[in-house]
């Protein structure tokens, strides 16, 4: 079983991102479970959501403590949240950021990928300059990093779940799939190219 943790801010569609990923993975033949952190959501405040997937039925119904990978929808969260909390060694950290983080030390022992999801969202008219909607690009990135679910499955999930700007969201997911930068495993001495 693989467990994914999403970090975002209230209003960014973080919960929808986790649902989209679950639906795309279900399309790809996996058993899935997705849920938000069970709290009171406020706009702009840090939020978390989770996805579990497996070829077998998923029995466990508890919070996720040791995710295999994390998705960070807003790079400003890196300043005050430890996104590596409980993360398994060599897990991927996928960050929405136009550039690679300056300081790679906090990511030592994990794999890093980044994508300019804000830029992609704006280019595809998703949200506004101050509030770009980045969840569909982040799912496109996930599909590239893990080579699954297929972009067909991602497209089907977007068509099912996203109420508006469907074509723009599909295009954004595809753009992010193409444009993500895979840095790979961060070693203490330096960086391995993926």
């Amino acid at each position, binding site marked *: 079983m693989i467990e994914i943790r999403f970090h975002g801010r209230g209003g960014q569609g973080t919960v929808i991102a986790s649902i989209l990923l679950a639906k795309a993975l*279900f399309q790809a033949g996996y058993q899935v479970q997705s849920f938000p952190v*069970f709290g009171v959501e406020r706009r702009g405040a840090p939020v978390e959501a989770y996805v579990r997937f497996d070829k077998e039925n998923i*029995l466990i*119904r508890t919070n996720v*403590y040791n995710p295999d990978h994390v998705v960070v929808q807003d790079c400003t969260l890196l300043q005050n949240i430890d996104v590596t909390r409980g993360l398994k060694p060599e897990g991927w950290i996928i960050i929405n950021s136009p550039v690679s983080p300056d300081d790679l030390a906090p990511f030592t022992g994990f794999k890093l990928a980044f994508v300019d999801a804000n830029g992609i969202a704006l280019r595809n008219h998703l949200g506004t300059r101050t509030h770009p909607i980045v969840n569909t690009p982040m799912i496109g990135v996930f599909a590239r990093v893990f080579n699954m679910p297929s972009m067909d499955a991602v497209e089907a999930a977007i068509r099912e779940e996203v109420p508006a700007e469907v074509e723009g969201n599909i295009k954004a997911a595809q753009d992010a799939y193409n444009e993500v930068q895979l840095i790979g495993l961060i070693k203490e001495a330096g960086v391995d190219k993926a």
Partner: protein
Amino acid sequence: MKRVLEGSQAVAEAVRLAKVDVISAYPITPQTHIVEFLSEYCAKGTMNARFLRVESEHSALATLIGAATTGVRTFTATSSQGLALMHELLHWTTGARVPVVMAEVNRALGPGWNIWTDQTDSLAQRDTGWIQLYCENGQEVLDTIIQAFRLGEWVNLPVMVVLDAFFLSHTYEPVDVPDQEPVDHFLPPYEPKFQVDTKDPRAFGSLVAPNAYMEMRYNIAEAMEEAQSCFQKIEDEYKGIFGRRYGLVEPVYCDDAEIVLVTSGTITSTSRQVINDLRARGEKVGLLKIKLFRPFPVDIIRQILKSIPKVAVIDRNISFGASGIFAQEVRAALCNLAGHPLVFGYIVGLGGRDVTTDVLEDIYWRTKNNNVPEKESIWLGLQEV
């Protein structure tokens, strides 16, 4: 067709498929999404029901008692404080013998104000004469809601289908949503055994003197008992059409078990994982899931547990001054059996605290390593305060 649905939407889909005539509910977290889905279905014409907006849960149930008395199918949903506010009318629903169906999303009672899961709200209503069915996943929620209408309408009692806040109500997972046609076959339109005629109004609900009241109560008690066999027949039929059955209770690996965990709600699902892991390490552990809480299936529980040395009952609820409520019921069911099992009672997960695989394993080892229970109720995971 299987779709990835939120637990709340599994409830709403079942209500849609059941072709409910009248819905009345007052929103409260974590039940809110159920009400949102249903009001949207009614607004869009996906469902052809009357959705009656009211100013409180008390009025929601009062509305449905009135509607059901005229012979229509009715549904409501609530949680916690909302259910507590309905308390007077919970009794009334039963006494009036109208088969209202309710989805009850388990939420802790305040204060301290808490929106997270805890079974005390529904279990505190155990003496109101509502049938209570506890579910562990979205599929079971959908199936049980559909079955609840058949059951309630058969025995003329209200039915509460209970699901955990968030761990079930807000969790998305694949759920097989049946087509309308087989559901129509399984659940035909409601044919009330009695109803008031709105075109010929009469006085209703007059005084019942001591010479008749006791018989009316006895009839309710009998209907409650009958609900067990009726539910089994309903499940047989449901399995024939939809391929799924759950049982009043479900024993897992109980035949050779030395310790059986007794569970309800989503803790059952996580416990399945835990007992699989423990079995793989050679531990003789089993699981007894209790789905039907009212009526309490005493005979079948006795039958399953009679030769088990130790039973560990896991309660996400507390009756202050007594113990966990499932533990009380299991003890009462077993006490007249000669040489009955030792019953260990554990209090866990109140107010939404997570019941992890580690907590469940801890329960197993404590039960194994103690010859007798240290206390009637063992509270796990308490922090120093």
